C-alpha cells in the first residue's frame, strides 16, 4: 500500500472524485473497524465510532495536506474520536466505556476450524481470555497495542497518532505485551522469538 497514493486519492476526493474515496475506503475500512471494535468492544459503539471517523475525514477533506501520511491522519482521527467517546461515556456515568457489551462480543466470536469440541472450547476460552486481558490494559497501552496489531502502523507512526514520543510508544507496547503474556501464558516456554513486536521493541 502506497502512502503517497493514499494522499493522492485523498486529494482527488477533495476535488470531487468519489472513486478515489471508494478506493481509500476499501483499503482502510477493515483495519479501522477492527481497531475501533477492539477498543470499544461494543458493536453499537464501534459502528458509531466508525461512522464518526469517516464523517470527520470527509468533513476535513479540504484541510488534508499530502505531506502528512494518510493513514496517520486517519488513525489520529480515530484515536481522538475514541478518546471523545470515552469522555462522553464518563459524562453519562458509565464507569468503563470499553467494557460495555462484553457479552455481545463473546457471543459474536466465531468457532475455530477445529472439529474436536475440546479444541474448540479451548480456543474459545483463549479468545475470551485474550479479550479480557486486552480490556484490562491501561487505555494508553491498549491504544498502542491495538494500533500496532490491528492497523499495521509502525511505532513511529503510532507515536505521531497518539501524540507521544517514539520511546514512549515503544515502552507502552512492551508493557502491553508483557501483561497480555502474563494473562495468557502463565508458564512461559523458552523458545526463540520471531515476529514484528520482538523486532521493533528490541527483544
Amino acid at each position: 500500500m502506497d502512502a503517497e497514493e493514499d494522499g493522492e486519492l485523498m486529494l482527488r476526493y477533495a476535488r470531487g472524485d468519489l472513486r478515489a474515496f471508494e478506493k481509500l475506503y476499501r483499503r482502510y475500512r477493515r483495519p479501522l473497524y477492527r481497531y475501533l471494535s477492539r477498543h470499544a468492544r461494543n458493536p453499537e459503539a464501534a459502528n458509531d465510532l466508525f461512522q464518526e471517523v469517516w464523517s470527520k475525514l470527509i468533513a476535513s477533506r479540504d484541510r488534508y495536506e499530502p505531506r502528512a501520511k494518510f493513514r496517520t491522519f486517519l488513525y489520529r482521527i480515530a484515536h481522538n474520536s475514541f478518546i471523545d467517546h470515552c469522555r462522553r461515556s464518563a459524562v453519562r456515568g458509565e464507569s468503563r466505556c470499553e467494557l460495555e457489551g462484553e457479552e455481545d462480543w463473546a457471543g459474536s466470536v466465531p468457532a475455530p476450524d477445529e472439529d474436536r469440541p475440546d479444541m474448540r472450547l479451548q480456543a474459545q476460552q483463549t479468545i475470551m481470555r485474550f479479550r479480557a486481558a486486552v480490556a484490562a490494559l491501561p487505555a494508553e497501552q491498549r491504544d498502542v497495542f491495538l494500533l500496532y496489531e490491528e492497523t499495521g502502523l509502525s511505532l513511529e507512526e503510532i507515536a505521531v497518532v497518539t501524540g507521544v514520543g517514539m520511546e514512549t510508544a515503544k515502552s507502552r507496547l512492551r508493557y502491553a505485551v508483557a501483561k497480555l503474556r502474563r494473562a495468557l501464558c502463565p508458564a512461559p516456554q523458552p523458545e526463540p522469538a520471531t515476529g514484528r513486536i520482538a523486532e521493533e521493541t528490541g527483544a
Partner: protein
Amino acid sequence: MSGREDKDELEGYRRALLRAHLYTREPLEPPAELDRIVLRAARLAIEPQRPAITPAAHRRRWAVPASVAASVLVALTLVIDLGAHSLRSIFAAAPTLQATTGMSSSSPADAPLGSDVQPSGSGYPSTIYSRLAANGGPAKEPIFEVVIRSARLTAQGASTDARHSSASR
C-alpha cells in the same frame, strides 16, 4: 526485562493468538449497511461541487415555456379585443341601417326587456343598457353589448326582409 524474557513473553503471546485464530479467522468487518452510510455521506459531501443544476439554470429551463405561454396569452387577448372592436364598429352602423330601412324608435322606457330582440324593430339597444344599469346590471359590459347588438342586427335584418317580400307581393 532481559532479552530472553522479552522473547519468551512475545512468543507466548504470539502462540496464544495463533492458537485462537484471533487475527486470521475472525471475520470482523463493518456491516454492509455501515458501508452504504459512509459512501453515501462521501457522495453527498461532494455533490455541490459537481456541475449540477444551479438555481439560474433552473430558471433558464422554465424561461422558454413561460415566454411562449405569455406570448400566446397576449396574442389571444389582442385577437379577442380586436375582434370585439371590429364588431362594435359594425354595430355602430346600426342607426344608419335603421334609417335606410325606415324603422321607428319607440320610447325606451315603454319597451319590455324581450322587445329588444323581437323582429318588431322597436327601440334602440341603449334602452336595455340604461335599464340594466338602473338595476345595477352589466350596462357597460363589452361582451354583453356585443351579444345584444348582434341579436338586434339579426332581428332588424329579418324584419327588413319581411317587408321587402310583402311589398313585392
